[in-house]
Structure formats: structure tokens, C-alpha cells
């Protein structure tokens, strides 16, 4: 006998003409904001997406979770998000397949090791489990790494971050959507926002092909498409859209059980439960809204991976893909109320590292909406920091760390 699922994960609704809050974008950040709003008792909320749920960067993410950042602003925020992720599966009652496999950030030069050391110091000061280890311990954690001396990029040390891991990205999207739906939030896929209506320095709602929707507040959680949405509100923001590519190999027997990242080689790699190796790297060297993958990047990823794990030389690549990333000048996110446009809230600037941030960004954005007060955790990430020239220097970490 065939068994069909009777209950949908989230319901279908006709689009109404007014909500308290409209969230644009149903990736992890929009859905997390919706979920936590629901938990706070604010459920007259609609999440609108031009495509299917999680079809943006969220579905394309390599979904690494970690909190070993560099700055005093970013570490507490990502630490909080990491903690929320650890409890999220039980909170949502949905298996997110969180595998806390740990992470190595490899240093191949004096200067990389300097930055890794700095991160270890800041991490320890701010309660994040991360430390510098030498080749002997690297060998124990990942015996397959090529530690031979005399290479152009020898392995000198690594930043070891035991609680890092990987979650199933689709499960996060579905679990948050189901949780939001159960709290009464409406989710509307295939509903594009084509305009943002404003009056007297306030947003009043959005326009869609299905009609005008008024809203007390509008949240943009549109990642790589943020500039196209803020342009509807007459705003140029400090974001440029770059594609990030990744690929996966055919499955093999358990081979490495830790995520390995090398900034000098511009590559990171880990093995999934299914045995496939997931490989990612830097963003493409030019901005674009095209999500095509390229042979140039595949060659780069393959060559760099073989520097670390030469045993993979005969393995076949099964798939390669690209997703859009909303890069900011300081490699830090943009969250909070937009000055001068009341009721317009940004949750963006997630670049190549935003998957791990969704629980904390959603909860703090929901708290801002519920209380009208910007939570301290996200105060440093306001859009206004670019007017005040008060950037958050996560870019320095990016020099010595692959930034996922």
C-alpha cells in the first residue's frame, strides 16, 4: 500500500490586501524572521517570494555553521546563531541533520597564521571554542591531508573549531516555513514584489502582480537581489552581487570527517553523510546576476582541492552550481531599520556566509519589529554605519579565512 502525506508542510492562502508585516524573500533569513515573529505572537504576516521557497542562495548553500569570526561585533552575533542552531531541530521538531564535525582553517604562511592566531585569541576571549593546532594534531583529525614539507604552500598550522558543522539546508528552509505556518504566518511563493509604496517617509506596503498589499512594516530579506528591492524604495545600498560556486563529487567511503578550509588556496571541502565531497571556493571575480556555473571555477576548485587532498585525483564531479551573494564592503551583514524610511527593515548583506546567521538574524529582526527597539546584538550592523564610516572589519578575517 502506498502512503501519502496528508498534511501539507505549509498552507496555501489567497493574498490579502493588508498585513501587519510583509517579508520579501523566503530564504532562510525571511523565513527565520517570520518564524520568530510567530513565536512572539505576531502572526498577521506574509512572506512573499518571486520563486519557490529557499530557491535563492539558501538552496545552493554548502551550509557550514561556525562562530570563529574575527571582530568583537561579529563573534557574539554568530555565537548566538550557532547556539540557536544547536537547539533548532528540537525546537522545530524537524530533523536538520546537524553534523558537528568540526572545522580546520589551514594556515600556509606566516601571515595567514598570524590572522588565525588573532581569531583564536578573540574567539577564546568571547567564549567561542577555537584554538591553534600544529601539523601533528591536524594529522590526527584529518589523516588524508597532504602534510608533506617542501610544497609551495606548506601546512604550518590550523585554527581548530570543534563545534562547527553542517546542517541540511533544505531542512532548515522547510522546518522554519512549517513553524511559521503553524503560528499563523502566510507563505506566498511565486509572488514577486515589483514595487514598494511610501508616504511621508514611511513605507506603506508593496506592489505585486496580484495587486497592492499594504503593510505596517516591510522587511527585505532578498540577499543577492537586495539592490533591486531597495531601488524600489529609492535607495542605493552598499551591496554588490557576486556569484559563489560549489560542486560535489561522486560518493565514496568515509574519508574525512571535518570541514577543511584554506584561504591561501581559496577552497573548502567536507564529506557529507552520503559520502559525497562538497567543494566550494571564492566568489567569481566579477559581479553578475547570472547563476551559471563556469569551467574556469571548476578547474580552480579541483586544482586547489588536490593540493590539500591528493588522494582525490581520480574522483568524478557530479554537479556544480552557483548562487548569488550580496557582498558588502566590510564583509559584515546589514540589519535593522533604514534611517529616513520608517517601517523599512533590512536583513541582508549575507554574502557567502549568511546561512549560519539565519536563526540570530531572524530572532533579532523579529524582536526589533515587536518592540520597536534595535537589539544590541545587531546595533553595529545598521545601514547607517556606511554614512558614519564605522565599518565592521570582518574583511580582515576574510583575507586569512575562506568566508563561508
Amino acid at each position, binding site marked *: 500500500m502506498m502512503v501519502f502525506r496528508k498534511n501539507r508542510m505549509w498552507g496555501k492562502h489567497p493574498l490579502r490586501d493588508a498585513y501587519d508585516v510583509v517579508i520579501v524573500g523566503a530564504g532562510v533569513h525571511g523565513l527565520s524572521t517570520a518564524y520568530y515573529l510567530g513565536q512572539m505572537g505576531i502572526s498577521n504576516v506574509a512572506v512573499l517570494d518571486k520563486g519557490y521557497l529557499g530557491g535563492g542562495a539558501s538552496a545552493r548553500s554548502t551550509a557550514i555553521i561556525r562562530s570563529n569570526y574575527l571582530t568583537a561585533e561579529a563573534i557574539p552575533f554568530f555565537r548566538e546563531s550557532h547556539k540557536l542552531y544547536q537547539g533548532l531541530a528540537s525546537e522545530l521538531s524537524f530533523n536538520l541533520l546537524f553534523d558537528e564535525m568540526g572545522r580546520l582553517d589551514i594556515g600556509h604562511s606566516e601571515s595567514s597564521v598570524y590572522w588565525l592566531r588573532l581569531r583564536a585569541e578573540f574567539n577564546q576571549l568571547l567564549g567561542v571554542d577555537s584554538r591553534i593546532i600544529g601539523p601533528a594534531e591536524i594529522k590526527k583529525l584529518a589523516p588524508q591531508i597532504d602534510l608533506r614539507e617542501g610544497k609551495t604552500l606548506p601546512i604550518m598550522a590550523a585554527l581548530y573549531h570543534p563545534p562547527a558543522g553542517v546542517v541540511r539546508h533544505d531542512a532548515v528552509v522547510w522546518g522554519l516555513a512549517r513553524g511559521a505556518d503553524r503560528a499563523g504566518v502566510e507563505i506566498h511563493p511565486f509572488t514577486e514584489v515589483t514595487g514598494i509604496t511610501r508616504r511621508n517617509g514611511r513605507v506603506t506596503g508593496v506592489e505585486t502582480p496580484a495587486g497592492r498589499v499594504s503593510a505596517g512594516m516591510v522587511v527585505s530579506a532578498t540577499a543577492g537581489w537586495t*539592490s*533591486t528591492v531597495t531601488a524600489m524604495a529609492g535607495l*542605493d*545600498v552598499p551591496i*554588490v552581487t557576486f556569484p559563489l560556486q560549489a560542486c560535489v563529487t561522486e560518493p565514496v567511503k568515509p574519508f574525512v570527517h571535518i570541514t577543511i578550509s584554506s584561504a591561501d588556496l581559496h577552497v573548502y571541502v567536507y564529506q557529507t553523510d552520503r559520502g559525497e565531497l562538497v567543494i566550494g571556493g571564492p566568489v567569481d571575480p*566579477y*559581479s553578475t546576476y*547570472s547563476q551559471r556555473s563556469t569551467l574556469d571555477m571548476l578547474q580552480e576548485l579541483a586544482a586547489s582541492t588536490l593540493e590539500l587532498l591528493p588522494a582525490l585525483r581520480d574522483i568524478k564531479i557530479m554537479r556544480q552550481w552557483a548562487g548569488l551573494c550580496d557582498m558588502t564592503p566590510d564583509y559584515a551583514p546589514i540589519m535593522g531599520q533604514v534611517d529616513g524610511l520608517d517601517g523599512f527593515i533590512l536583513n541582508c548583506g549575507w554574502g557567502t556566509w549568511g546561512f549560519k546567521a539565519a536563526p540570530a538574524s531572524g530572532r533579532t529582526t523579529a524582536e526589533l519589529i515587536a518592540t520597536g527597539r534595535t537589539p544590541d546584538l545587531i546595533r553595529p550592523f545598521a545601514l547607517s554605519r556606511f*554614512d*558614519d564610516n564605522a565599518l565592521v572589519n570582518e574583511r580582515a578575517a576574510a583575507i586569512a579565512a575562506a568566508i563561508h
Partner: protein
Amino acid sequence: MAFLVRCPNCGDRGVYEFRFGGEVVRRPSTSEAAPVWMKYFYARRNAAGNQREWWYHSLGCRRWLLAERDTTTNEILSTGWPGEVQA
């Protein structure tokens, strides 16, 4: 489909021969106040569609050129030297 950039000197070349210089942004005059300069430093249109932008032919003739590109398809619509085409 290959992503080619037409260098006015060297002709159609693969994009990996070039360094991307970002969208064309107008530099304010030195008499402008700090907020105008902050916008110039950081704010971008980041258009999904036609964009005027800078490219440097780093593995070719090593000259900066201006291009118009459709950022949704990566089709280069036109190129030219600064000063000869509109920035």
C-alpha cells in the same frame, strides 16, 4: 556560452584575461561634504540589467576600458576607451 569581453585593442577575449573594476561611479568634487563622499565610497546601484563598468585587460594590453554589460546574461553590449565613450 563563453563570457567574452571585447577589448578595443585586442578583440574578443575570455573574461579571465581581465580584472573587473566595478560599476562606473561619479567622483564628487572635493568641496562636497562627507556624506556625499560616503555614498561615493560605498553605495552602488548594482543594477540587474545594463551596467556601465570598468575592466582592466591585465593579461593583455594592460589598459583600462569601459564596457556596457547586461548583468543578468553577462553579454557585453559595447566597449570603448575612457574619454572616447561616455563613462
